[in-house]
């Protein structure tokens, strides 16, 4: 009998594929955002408002994931190119389905590609969809004590969007408490408060995404310049 140390991550291939996707997309200027939350926190509403805000300035497309129906795709269709991904039962999206969805949409050359994940704060945390940024959304009706309950999701996110702020006067949600809880898990979270209904905070969040995209493109340009001199 011979024991061999292999230390093989069972997700290694999936992670490599995600890395390839990530690089391919930014090389042509597309910044990919994976939007996650519990069901009903306001992902689709935010995307519709962002498409409206960015019209004629930045292009975006959406791949929206649900178990069944194309309701979200129908809601977004008036605002931007969108494809519905239906899993039929899987509670999270995985890269192969996302890739097929992107191709089905005609692989659009857009500034921003949003992946609206299945409403679920558990399983999506463990699946890299080739995104450049992961945004976790928490509505004021979800409760300000949720981040600590979903450590992996908040740890792996880059940004927190607190939504439905128009309802804040009616619920015991303390923004500072939610942000502190979230930042105790991931101190580098960029936090935003929005109301899609009242169209507030959308501009600030969009500016953040524009900046993130610009920074990444600048970094790529720098790297290309360095590579060219070698």
């Amino acid at each position, binding site marked *: *009998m*011979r*024991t*061999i*140390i*292999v*230390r*093989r*991550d*069972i*997700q290694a291939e999936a992670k490599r594929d995600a890395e390839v996707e990530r690089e391919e997309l930014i090389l042509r200027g597309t910044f990919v955002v994976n939007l996650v939350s519990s069901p009903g926190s306001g992902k689709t509403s935010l995307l519709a408002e962002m498409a409206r805000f960015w019209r004629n300035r930045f292009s975006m497309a959406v791949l929206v994931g649900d178990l069944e129906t194309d309701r979200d795709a129908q809601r977004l269709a008036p605002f931007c190119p969108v494809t519905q991904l239906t899993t039929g039962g899987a509670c999270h999206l995985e890269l192969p389905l996302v890739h097929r969805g992107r191709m089905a949409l005609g692989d659009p050359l857009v500034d921003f590609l949003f992946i609206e994940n299945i409403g679920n704060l*558990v*399983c999506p*945390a*463990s699946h890299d969809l080739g995104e450049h940024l992961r945004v976790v959304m928490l509505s004021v009706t979800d409760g300000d004590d949720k981040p*600590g309950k979903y*450590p*992996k999701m908040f*740890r792996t996110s880059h940004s927190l969007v607190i939504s439905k702020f128009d309802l804040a006067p009616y619920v015991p949600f303390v923004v500072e408490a939610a942000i502190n809880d979230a930042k*105790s*898990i*991931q*101190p580098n979270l960029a936090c935003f408060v929005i109301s899609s209904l009242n169209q507030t905070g959308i501009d600030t969040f969009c500016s953040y995404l524009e900046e993130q995209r610009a920074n990444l493109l600048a970094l790529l340009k720098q790297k290309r310049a360095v590579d060219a001199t070698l």
Partner: protein
Amino acid sequence: MHERSVAKNILREMEELGQEYPQGRIAAVEIEVGLMSGVDASLLASALEIEQDRMQPRIDFQIHTVSLLAHCGPCGKTSQIESFVFSCIHCGSQQIDITQGESVRILTITLDDPS
């Protein structure tokens, strides 16, 4: 997460490992389940048991959970993260990188002697 599909992933990796190490049959596998991998070790054991029914002869799966370890940028020390409190236990900094506990890994394989 979905222990049945994780079990299938493990078997797929084992098939590849079997090709990389053709000197003998894989008789035993040691699997490490990270505390923040999203996978439950006992459910994974059950899922592998179910897959075992299709495999002859049996493979001995040793599964154990490993804790979250993180390296601290400012002080350079390693901390064991307890209760998902993400800060260095030595200096208190939150600028830490997780070095263990986020994934499921096949640690070792044990090959039968060729008969």
